[in-house]
């Protein structure tokens, strides 16, 4: 029964996670309000637009009950600008979408896929967290809702290549201290790179483990009172092992 999977989400699970993103649809039929587990679904009245989770949008689209309005960033114009930015800045990913105002102290903080990063009124100057998987899914299921699906597809492929190259170059920066900032990285990109990146960091850490332990011991000694017998004892033992 236990899950036989390595740490982190699999690509299929990232896609499942991405299907919770809100997208804008133009319904072609009426649908009454529905009490769903994730909250009430507002009634749909054509031709009024509605924001629904991607899984539902895809379901309605496949049954020809709705059209999907692609988010503004998923247009040739916006993607070209983002691709330019990605090519000009060799070391960093393009910045993620602007955040909503900070939540107050005890309010729940929302994060993707529960931020409206892919609805019709989302920004067009940044790639959202689930850019790659969302773009793929929309192009697959709703290509006819795009004005120019071919250029969008081409631009997404271009973005993927530029960013993949950055990921590869970025591995040189990974060090044992294991504090690497990766702003703007996408959900699917994490799923692809996780095993490699965490593997490199974990192994480098194990290589420098002795140095770190020494440093921690020293830190401990500074804070503790002198004469911490157990530590000194271990040190002595180590020395005799090495000299004998």
């Amino acid at each position, binding site marked *: 029964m236990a899950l036989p999977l390595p740490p982190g989400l699999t690509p299929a699970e990232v896609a499942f996670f991405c299907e919770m993103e809100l997208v804008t649809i133009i319904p072609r039929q009426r649908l009454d309000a529905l009490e769903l*587990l994730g909250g009430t679904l507002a009634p749909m009245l054509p031709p009024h637009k509605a924001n629904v989770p991607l*899984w539902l949008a895809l*379901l309605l689209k496949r049954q020809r009950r709705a059209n999907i309005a692609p988010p503004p960033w998923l247009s040739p114009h916006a993607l070209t600008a983002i691709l330019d930015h990605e090519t000009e800045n060799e070391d960093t990913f393009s910045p993620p979408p602007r955040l909503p105002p900070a939540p107050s102290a005890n309010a729940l903080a929302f994060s993707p896929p529960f931020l409206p990063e892919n609805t019709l009124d989302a920004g067009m100057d940044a790639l959202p967290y689930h850019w790659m998987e969302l773009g793929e899914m929309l192009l697959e299921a709703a290509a006819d809702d795009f004005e120019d699906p071919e250029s969008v597809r081409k631009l997404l492929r271009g973005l993927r290549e530029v960013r993949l190259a950055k990921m590869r170059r970025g591995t040189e920066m*990974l060090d044992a201290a294991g504090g*690497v900032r990766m*702003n703007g990285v996408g959900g699917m990109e994490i799923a692809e790179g996780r095993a490699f990146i965490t593997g490199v960091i974990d192994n480098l*850490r194990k290589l420098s483990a002795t140095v770190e332990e020494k440093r921690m011991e020293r830190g401990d000694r500074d804070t503790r009172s002198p004469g911490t017998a157990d530590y000194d004892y271990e040190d002595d033992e180590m020395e005799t092992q090495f000299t004998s």
Partner: protein
Amino acid sequence: MMDIDDLLQEVSAHAVPQETRDLQELTRCWVAERAAPELLEWPEELMGRVLERIRRQIDIIEEATGSMDASTNFKLIIIQTELERFKFLVRSFLRARLKKIDAHPHHILSLLPAQPSLLSGTEHAYLTNHQALLANHYHASFLSQFPVPLQKLDDTTGGVSMVERPDENAAVFVRALREVEEVFVEGTERRFRMARGDVWVVRWRAVKGLVRAGMVEVI
């Protein structure tokens, strides 16, 4: 004193229905449990609400099936699709926890006195019963042949512990949900600030307290 933005935001945060907030929390718990090296606290209240809603939704579906009306049928398809998604989430979450419980049973048993809410009631029953069965079995098949001092399964004498522990220093991907003044990576000189929205790859040990406090989330 609160300014008008805070007030507006308070209002809008409460405008998000409890169901949607629970879905955000449940998926966050799921991703964290899948990616973190250690077993995380059992979200008792959240899971109580979610499981109760799932139970009610199943009742609704059972009552409504059999109707021949096409529009009701389509509504049922939507409700059922969503229900299956929730069931997948809950199942994957529970199985990820079960994997960790199976991997480090003695370690988790040793944590329980200090952290009684680490496991759910059924997980606790599973862990103790399973370990009792295993201990009986080992004893009957070979342990009883050993000298008494060598029969323990959680021996820690001699400087080497038999109890396997998760690797608390494993690297994880995290995203800051609020401003974090300072993260300190123990054993190194590394100290850094996390701005809201920042994504970092960092050792689990350095951020686990922040994850528990809801300052950062595992991604």
